[in-house]
């Protein structure tokens, strides 16, 4: 069986102030299709870097990242952009919506770069916004939305291209616990629709409430892999 994500010997080094800084040291890990995996660890442990490399926003110094058999390290920038456009969706702690665009325009953006027709874009963006319970807010700008609503819009954007994998970097980090739980509920729905989820968090309770597996990273290495509370 093909893994959804297959990471092998993943190393990432940055040069900081002339000194090499090793963020990930030979991480090996595979994620099965439809799995929810939470990556835990203290700040600076390398969990976000792992997520960014799997999402094609960053490149490994060594090792391979295979998504459905294709190695991200071998892709050029153009191919990597297409990968991000078609195969993954992102959620960020700070939502990262474009402030000058309405919720609908923000959600349409991935479709725009994919070359979908305006009619198709609108239809799919509205459907995605409705699926996250934001159907009544489609023409509001991010500043007119609450934090929870902004993250819902970001979720709509993440799934509008029907990606197989959604990567969420501290998705509830900027939200109060009630709103955070609403978002987690929506993420479970995304998973029910067949998507593989890779979530970083430093909150053990959150990890235990959604994850099939919890991976703890300390100092760039996997310290432990345990089964989550939901499995």
């Amino acid at each position, binding site marked *: 069986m093909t893994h959804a994500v297959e990471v092998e010997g993943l190393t990432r080094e940055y040069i900081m102030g002339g000194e090499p800084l090793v963020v990930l040291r030979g991480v090996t890990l595979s994620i099965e299709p439809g799995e929810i995996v939470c990556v835990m660890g203290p700040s600076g442990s390398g969990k976000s870097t792992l997520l960014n490399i799997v999402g094609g926003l960053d490149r490994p110094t060594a090792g391979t990242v295979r998504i459905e058999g294709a190695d991200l390290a071998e892709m050029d920038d153009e191919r990597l952009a297409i990968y*991000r456009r078609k195969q993954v969706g992102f959620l960020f702690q700070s939502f990262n919506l474009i402030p000058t665009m309405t919720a609908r325009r923000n959600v349409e953006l991935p479709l725009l*770069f994919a*070359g979908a027709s305006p009619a198709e874009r609108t239809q799919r963006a509205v459907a995605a916004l409705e699926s996250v319970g934001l159907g009544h807010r489609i023409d509001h700008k991010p500043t007119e939305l609450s934090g929870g609503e902004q993250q819902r819009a970001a979720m709509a954007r993440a799934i509008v*291209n029907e990606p197989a994998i959604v990567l969420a970097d501290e998705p509830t980090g900027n939200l109060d616990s009630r709103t955070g739980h609403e978002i987690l509920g929506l993420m479970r729905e995304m998973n029910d629709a067949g998507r593989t989820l890779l979530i970083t968090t430093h909150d053990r309770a959150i990890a235990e409430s959604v994850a099939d597996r919890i991976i703890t990273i300390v100092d760039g290495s996997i310290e432990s892999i345990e089964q989550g509370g939901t499995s």
Partner: protein
Amino acid sequence: MRFRDLSFLVVSNLRRMKLRLALTSLGVVIGTAAIVLMLSLGIGLQANMTASLGDLGAATHINVMGGGMGPMGTEGVVLNDEMVEQFGAIEHVEAVLPSTYVFSIQDVRYRRYQAYLNTMGVPMDAFEKFGYELEEGRLPRNNKEILLGAVIPTSFSFASDDLFMGGTTPTAPELDLLGKRLTAKVVTYPTEDEYKSDPNAPAKEEKRKFTVVGILAPSDMQTDQTAYVTMDAAIDLNDLDKRKVSYENVIVKADSVNSVAEVEQTIMDMGFYTFSARSIQDQLKSVFLIIQGVLGALGAIAMLVAALGITNTMTMSIYERTREIGIMKAVGASNRQIKRVFLGEAAIIGMLGGTGGLLFSAAGAALANLFVQALIASQTATTGGVSTETTSFFQIPVWLAIFAIAFAAGVGLLAGVLPAVRAANLDPLTALRHE
């Protein structure tokens, strides 16, 4: 990404920075206006040169002036029959028309009308070779006959003796002069010998009658206003010695427009002053070339500064939108798509500036045309000449309008290359972390 979507993205981005957009494109406005004016002047002149220079004489004619001074104040070469023969021998010369000004004719009268004529004596056989067409009648054959330029029948006014006192006389109606006899007042001044023997010898004044045998078809401005008599008549009227006659003016006709320059140079090398439609055209051209050069330089400098302004604005706006670029990359925008968005913005800034510049230059050209036309009108009014049709020295044809906007857009596009490439090559993670 579809072009329509790209345009939408570009336009909505630009709408966020209206003031900056306006200020940045102002440079392009000035640059485009200067360049369009330069080109429109060139086009207008090209059109007018060919149209209006017919007034200065036929394109193949070279006017040779006699009585000039030679180098270092020595006596200039004299335009005499010998020279006329030499001109005729020059390669590419088709015909030579010497003419002598009949200064002794002061005015001519017909009934109660009077006109001041510019009368020239010409050999009629050569005159015929020059291809002047007759509206009616024939060429003069003897001393008593005269040929009139096309506008002379309309140039008479009511006879008045106080004309020189500043009085104005009403213009006469067009006269039918063919076959009619004109009376010329001929004044002969004492010769040098007569003056020596009697310094107070009076000028002799007599009346001579001429029959109008022909009227010329309209040609160039000068010919239209000239009356022609035979060379013999001119010599007789001016009381000259036939063997020592020299001409004020000789017109040399080249066999084609292309050989005018060569023939004119040969004659100038012989020591004569010349002018031709071509040489006047050359002089005008050099004046206009300077105007065009100044406009062109101004336009080029303005365009360069404008381009730097666009680069600067784009660089700043990309810096401010770094995070946005990161977001676009995260949701799947490729480097090429990002580049296109910013190149599009730069091109639109250029295009807007170009459109503004075009409108500006169109207004400027209209004003300049009005001014030049007024100037021409006042000039023709004072010289009493026939007014030429209104001319537009600045012309902006459709292709120039399209070119101007496309050129400005191109300048914007070029100015946007550097910032757009920078934006495209931003590392997505760094861009996303940018505050």
